[in-house]
């Protein structure tokens, strides 16, 4: 009996310890997700309708969905590492914007330094998109900051997910697939392409401002720049991208190097589209470029705008088209009318299409008479 009791107590201890281990495992899993929230911001921000209506009547939602946030690239970073202007909790109304150039606590494994976007922000600051001291307030307002383009992709839910299995295959030799996260995709895509966004998303993103003529007029840009989206979409590149091509050039294929943020005006020596650099830019895809090739309009104007010869050819081709089609179809219809009138039938049956009006018997008699 004692033995049996021992066995029973063993069973109870076993069950309890199993549960304990399970709870520990569960806790460790959830603690991973909770790492970002060491200040317990979610205590308030988990509520879906946490928000207010500001002075201008805009409705602002302050909810953070942990299920979504834990899939993003920033999921291991504590809230206050970016929102570092918050000194006490509960905090006062926020007046500052997040600065993406802030050094965060994540230490990169190889350099052992704190990670920062500072380097890319320096490039951005020199590009056309950064606000400049001599910009008017209206212009400053119209220029895109980091967040304008980099809305976290998990929130914007990209339509065209590029298959990443191909780029992952080699990583999977050492790493297990179950650890694959958004961050993994974030890195692996950049190995093969300039960006993880599809060409369609890039064009849509750039067009958000560049197709807005009213907004672009604030910068007093040239006529070419005003209609750049329109003319790009007319080009072979633009048409292919519209149809979902992933191989064709989108905006940043030509307007930025692999640094991505180094977008300059075309008369800037650093610009990829500067006359001395353009050959190299085209060579990313077109292997054999030459001084004539780079003069082809990548943003073609509409047919014949400013080119009377092309316009003339276009008009005469139109005339030829309608002339030919109406002439030929008219002839065909006239022929059908004429032959139908002479008694032809549509179907070739019993060896002839000339049944009825022109029966062989009748005509035989008539022809015989005719011969007599």
């Amino acid at each position: 009996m004692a033995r049996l009791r021992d066995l029973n107590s063993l069973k109870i201890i076993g069950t309890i310890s199993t549960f304990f281990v399970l709870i520990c495992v569960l806790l460790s899993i959830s603690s991973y997700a909770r790492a970002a929230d060491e200040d317990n911001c979610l205590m308030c921000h988990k509520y879906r309708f946490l928000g207010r209506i500001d002075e201008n009547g805009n409705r602002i939602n302050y909810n953070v969905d942990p299920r979504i946030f834990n899939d993003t690239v920033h999921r291991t970073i504590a809230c206050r590492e970016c929102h570092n202007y918050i000194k006490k909790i509960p905090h006062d109304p926020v007046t500052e914007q997040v600065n993406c150039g802030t050094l965060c606590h994540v230490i990169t494994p190889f350099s052992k330094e704190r990670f920062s976007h500072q380097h890319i922000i320096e490039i951005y600051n020199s590009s056309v998109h950064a606000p400049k001291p001599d910009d008017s307030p209206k212009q400053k307002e119209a220029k895109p900051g980091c967040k304008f383009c980099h809305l976290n992709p998990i929130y914007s839910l990209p339509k065209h997910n590029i298959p990443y299995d191909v780029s992952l295959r080699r990583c999977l030799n050492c790493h297990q697939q179950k650890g694959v996260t958004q961050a993994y995709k974030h890195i692996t895509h950049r190995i093969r392409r300039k960006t993880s966004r599809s060409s369609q998303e890039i064009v849509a993103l750039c067009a958000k401002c560049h197709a807005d003529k009213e907004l672009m007029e604030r910068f007093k840009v040239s006529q070419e720049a005003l209609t750049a989206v329109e003319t790009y979409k007319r080009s072979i590149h633009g048409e292919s991208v519209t149809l979902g091509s992933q191989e064709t050039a989108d905006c940043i294929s030509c307007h930025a190097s692999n640094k991505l943020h180094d977008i300059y005006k075309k008369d800037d020596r650093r610009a990829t589209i500067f006359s001395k650099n353009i050959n190299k830019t085209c060579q990313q895809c077109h292997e054999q470029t030459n001084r004539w090739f780079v003069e082809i309009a990548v943003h073609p104007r509409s047919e014949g705008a400013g080119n009377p010869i092309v316009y003339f050819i276009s008009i005469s081709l139109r005339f030829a088209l309608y002339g030919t089609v109406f002439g030929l179809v008219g002839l065909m219809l006239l022929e059908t009318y004429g032959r139908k009138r002479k008694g032809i039938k549509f179907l070739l049956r019993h060896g002839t299409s000339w049944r009825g009006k022109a029966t062989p018997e009748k005509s035989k008699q008539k022809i015989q008479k005719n011969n007599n």
Partner: protein
Amino acid sequence: MVAPPDIATAAVEEAAAREDYFTYIEGVGHIPRDIYKHVKSDPAGDLPRYSTHIVIQHILVSTTFLVLAATGLSLFFADVFWAPYVIKLFGGADTARYVHRVAAAIMIFAAVYHILTLVAGTTKKVMNNEFDYRRTQIPRLKDLHDLIHDIKYFLGLEPFRPKMEKFCYKQKLHYLAIIWGTIVLVSAGLALLYPDVVSKTIPEAIFKISPGAATGGAFPTFFQDLARLMHADEAVMALIVIALWHLANVHIVPGRFPFQWTFLTGRITREHQIEEHFWEYIRNLEEIPEEKEYMRNLLREKGFEVSEPMDTTLSRQTPEPGSAEESTPEKEEN
């Protein structure tokens, strides 16, 4: 004189007066112009028209044309609602572009094959002393007269259709259009496929001729714009002409509906041959003894004058006024 069926008396009298109603063939008899209304035809074709080579070329060209039109139109009119669906059918925009190029290569192969067939066939005929330019696609002034004559016939101003050769004005027009279209589409397509080469060679050639003309940067853009314009416009034109005219002419008009088998069998029906290619039928009579036999029997059955085969050498009487007059007394004798 009494009118043959369905033709106004006055018109027949006029035609008979001009004596082009009957065509006399040695060993057959006097063939009336409208005998096609009385012949028996096999829908699959009775008389040879196209060689196997031409049939193969037509299959190559027609299938690649459909692929080219489907991929090309949806690539060019990318913003039209159906374009994405067609593109998906071909496996996305990038694949569709390759499909378009492969189909174009096959079509160019068919064109080269056709030229080789033409050169070899013509050489053979010249060597055998059989070459007759009237049986080819070479345009003649007669084609213009035939067109005018045919329009008059359709309007009821002429009693009979013109006597046409193997290729009538319609076919010659279409053939010329195909030659023009192929040259334009292939050259413009190559300019789009190799923009780097074309943008270099043409302006450099111009530069060599007159250095002043090519100083501006307009030339590469001009030729690229022109290539796009020509390629698209010519393709749309070809598609519309094929869809509305060619297909209607070969498969829809009376006598051809619902399907004409010539493009697969290479053979043409007897009634079609006599109606639209009369002189070619006359040549068929000379070349095919069975056909001669058939026509003689038919003429005898219909009560026309038949000539017995006296001679082994056969000759066709040309529609010269002198020879036409000769046939009249023979008819009167009967």
